[in-house]
């Protein structure tokens, strides 16, 4: 079994190297059969890595404790779901998952584009397979998931494994890593297409449409992965937070930011043939930051609670990252002529200008996070002195940037392409601005005096109004012209231009998430010791300890508390926080008692009993508006899916030139 798995990975590595060589020889040696052979190698690699992954999962499921990875990350008592998720619970298995996802993406990309971009595909394959060779090389020669436990010259087996970290035994953590990997790894495909188009001087923008779809899908996976991670941190780590500005968390956020910038600026290239260099930089930055994130997670370069332990892969990742960076710089700088802009900017007050501005702010945000993450490493190398950059730095730097981005979220979509007159700006912004000011003023008079929070709420109201007005105006127009009910008109409106209105929905979701983040300015937290039957008043609640009991099952021992929660004398919920001690790993975990509501969450952590046994200790948190983060995510998900649906009506316009006069008449296809 283990030999077959290791052989499959070794063959996948060899085929990756072959695919790179065959693709380049096929392209530049004018031997088309070699290029076709490289395509087939891509499919074969997927088959081989699927076999290897299936064998590892089978070993985990059946408890084959001869294999070191299975012994280190699973045990007999674990449920089948967590035995399966142990696939990515450790370094070797997660690298196999990385490789398998990359091979899947590569196979899909090659299959769907092999005829469309015949000239470019060999270069795309060479880029994809170079990355594939790197990762399969790592799990072949450095960190094999099929290494067996040895004693002397013989293979040994142990009766049971050490089990998966209890913190990882949650459904959100089961889904979080694969989602993030789907996002990270997926960023390689747009990068490969972008570099392929650059190197082969691809005419037209066909590849951009293909790349944009890939970019949206991988962006969605990244968003889902990050949000699942936040959800896991919130419900599992028992600290009442969801984002800790840990280097590994930051590493997941940075490629998301550059991907967001790319999704905006790529529209400029599609519509106007502008910002080509910029788009190359963004798509490359997203890829490189994905690799950097993987490097930070796996090499112990920075201290992080999320990172895998120190491993021997640091020099390999660093070399790969630096080589890729140098090659990208060479590729872009030697092809600047090809990337020359096709149009000119008509006005500073235009959608084009606002896109670049939004991009710059996004990149500034990304840079501030990158700087905060890597500065301690740089300082230690320069001065031999350790530095700490924690949450206060990020809050001080990122909050103003985030507020400005929120403002631009509302402004950007309302500025016309090419040029906006002052009159049209006034018409577009008057009502939303008044609503924003009214909301901020109302909350201020209502007793909220936190300046950043007031600004955030005001801006959220401003952006929401701009978006709802766009829907309202468009729907009313269709309703009047075509005599249909307003909801149907809104549906028609969205279907006619899914990309635009899906994008608005995504913005709406982001606003909802910002409202949720802003709620953290008003968090309450206390620690209370309660005797049985004793009641405490906390925030809006009266909380009574009803019962404490303890027990055990195959997987863990537990102590369980029951708390009766009342508000204004009315019972609203029974919270049951718990402490667990996992038998296999001898590690403990707490299960929070959580009451979710739109206005605030009540979050209770049971921390044990006092030494004299008289009272149990609880941490109570009142966390306003947290639910809006998760609601916002669902809206973002819905909006992104809408963006991916083809519009009912297809508008085709020739690219506008300097003064915006179409060189040929518009055509409409339905």
């Amino acid at each position, binding site marked *: 079994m283990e030999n077959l798995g290791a052989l499959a990975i070794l063959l996948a590595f060899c085929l990756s190297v072959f695919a790179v060589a065959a693709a380049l020889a096929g392209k530049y040696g004018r031997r088309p059969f070699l290029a076709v052979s490289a395509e087939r190698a891509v499919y074969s690699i997927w088959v081989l890595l699927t076999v290897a992954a299936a064998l590892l999962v089978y070993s985990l499921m059946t408890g084959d404790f001869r294999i070191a990875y299975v012994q280190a990350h699973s045990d007999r008592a674990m449920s089948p779901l967590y035995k399966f998720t142990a696939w990515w619970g450790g370094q070797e298995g997660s690298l196999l998952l990385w490789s398998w996802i990359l091979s899947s993406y590569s196979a899909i990309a090659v299959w769907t584009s092999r005829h469309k971009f015949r000239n470019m595909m060999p270069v795309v394959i060479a880029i994809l397979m170079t990355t594939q060779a790197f990762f399969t090389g790592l799990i072949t020669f450095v960190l094999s998931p099929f290494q067996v436990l040895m004693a002397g010259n013989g293979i040994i087996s142990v009766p049971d494994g050490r089990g998966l970290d209890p913190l990882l035994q949650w459904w959100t953590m089961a889904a979080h890593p694969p989602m993030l990997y789907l996002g990270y790894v997926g960023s390689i495909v747009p990068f490969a297409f972008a570099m392929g188009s650059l190197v082969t001087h691809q005419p037209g923008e066909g590849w951009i449409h293909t790349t944009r779809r890939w970019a949206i899908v991988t962006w969605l996976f990244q968003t889902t992965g990050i949000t699942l991670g936040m959800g896991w941190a919130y419900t599992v780590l028992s*600290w009442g937070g969801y984002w800790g500005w840990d280097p590994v968390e930051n590493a997941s956020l940075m490629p998301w930011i550059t991907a967001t910038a790319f999704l905006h600026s790529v529209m400029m290239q599609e519509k106007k043939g502008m910002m080509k260099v910029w788009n190359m930089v963004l798509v490359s930055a997203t890829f490189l930051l994905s690799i950097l994130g993987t490097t930070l997670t796996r090499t112990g370069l920075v201290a992080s609670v999320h990172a895998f332990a120190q491993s021997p892969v640091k020099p390999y990742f660093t070399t790969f990252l630096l080589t890729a960076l140098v090659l990208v710089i060479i590729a872009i700088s030697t092809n600047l002529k090809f990337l020359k802009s096709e149009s000119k900017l008509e006005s500073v007050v235009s959608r084009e200008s606002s896109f670049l501005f939004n991009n710059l702010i996004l990149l500034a945000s990304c840079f501030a996070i990158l*700087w905060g993450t890597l500065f301690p490493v740089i300082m230690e190398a320069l001065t031999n002195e350790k530095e700490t950059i924690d949450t206060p730095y990020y809050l001080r730097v990122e909050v103003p940037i985030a507020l400005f981005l929120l403002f631009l979220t509302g402004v950007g979509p309302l500025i016309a392409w090419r040029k906006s007159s002052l009159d049209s700006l006034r018409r577009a912004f008057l009502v939303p601005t008044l609503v924003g000011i009214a909301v901020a003023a109302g909350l201020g008079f209502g007793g909220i005096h936190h300046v950043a929070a007031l600004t955030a709420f005001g801006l959220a109201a401003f952006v929401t109004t701009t978006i709802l007005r766009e829907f309202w105006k468009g729907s009313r127009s269709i309703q009047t012209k075509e005599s249909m009910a307003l909801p149907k008109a809104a549906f028609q409106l969205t279907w006619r231009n899914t990309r635009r209105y899906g994008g608005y929905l995504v913005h709406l979701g982001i606003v909802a998430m910002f409202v949720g983040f802003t709620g953290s300015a008003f968090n309450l937290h206390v*620690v209370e010791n309660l005797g049985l039957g004793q009641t405490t008043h906390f925030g809006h609640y009266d909380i009574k300890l009803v019962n404490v009991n303890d027990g055990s099952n195959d997987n863990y021992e537990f102590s369980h508390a029951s708390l009766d929660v009342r508000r204004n004398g009315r019972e609203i919920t029974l919270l049951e926080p718990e402490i667990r001690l996992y038998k296999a790993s001898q590690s403990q975990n707490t299960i929070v008692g959580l009451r979710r509501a739109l206005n605030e969450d009540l979050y209770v952590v049971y921390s044990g009993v006092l030494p004299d046994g008289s009272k149990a200790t609880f941490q109570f948190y009142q966390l306003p508006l947290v639910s809006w983060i998760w609601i916002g995510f669902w809206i973002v998900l819905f909006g992104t899916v809408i963006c991916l649906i083809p519009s009912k009506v297809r*508008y085709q316009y020739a690219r506008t030139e300097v003064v915006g006069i179409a060189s040929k008449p518009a055509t409409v296809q339905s």
Partner: protein
Amino acid sequence: MPVSLRRCSLRLVATLFLSFACLLAQDPTSDMTPSVARVGDHLACRCGVCRNTVATCPMLHCEYSGPMRARIKRMQDQGVSDQNIIKTVVKEQGVVALAAPPAEGWGLFTWVMPGVALLLGFLVYSWWVRRNRPDPEPVSDADRALLERFRGQIENEMGESDTAGSDPNEKK
């Protein structure tokens, strides 16, 4: 003390004492006062798990923040000023004890660089705007009037088209 809680507590203590020993320590947050929080806000929690400050670390039995809060409280009771408490901790542990580097020496780079990046961004933006502006061409008054007329017409038509849910520049 209620009998049932005593029974549960005794069982808990008996069964979990060794493994949960850390849970049974005294409540360290009792040291948390506004004046302790004022100092704790400047100091990083160095437990290796969270990225909070000594003031905001929510872990009840944090091995670092708990004792540090107690120490800050002790020093304040002895009349040591906030600044001197921070200086003492930094002298012992180095600047790594601070939640964020001080805005002096090398630490200044931490705070300045995001601003420099933003400034560079604005410069790039200004350069891009200037570079991408079309060259002004001599236009006669008659041409200008004609252009304005057409521009107004285009804007009106685009406004109508926009409100009908279509983006005339949309290209699939």
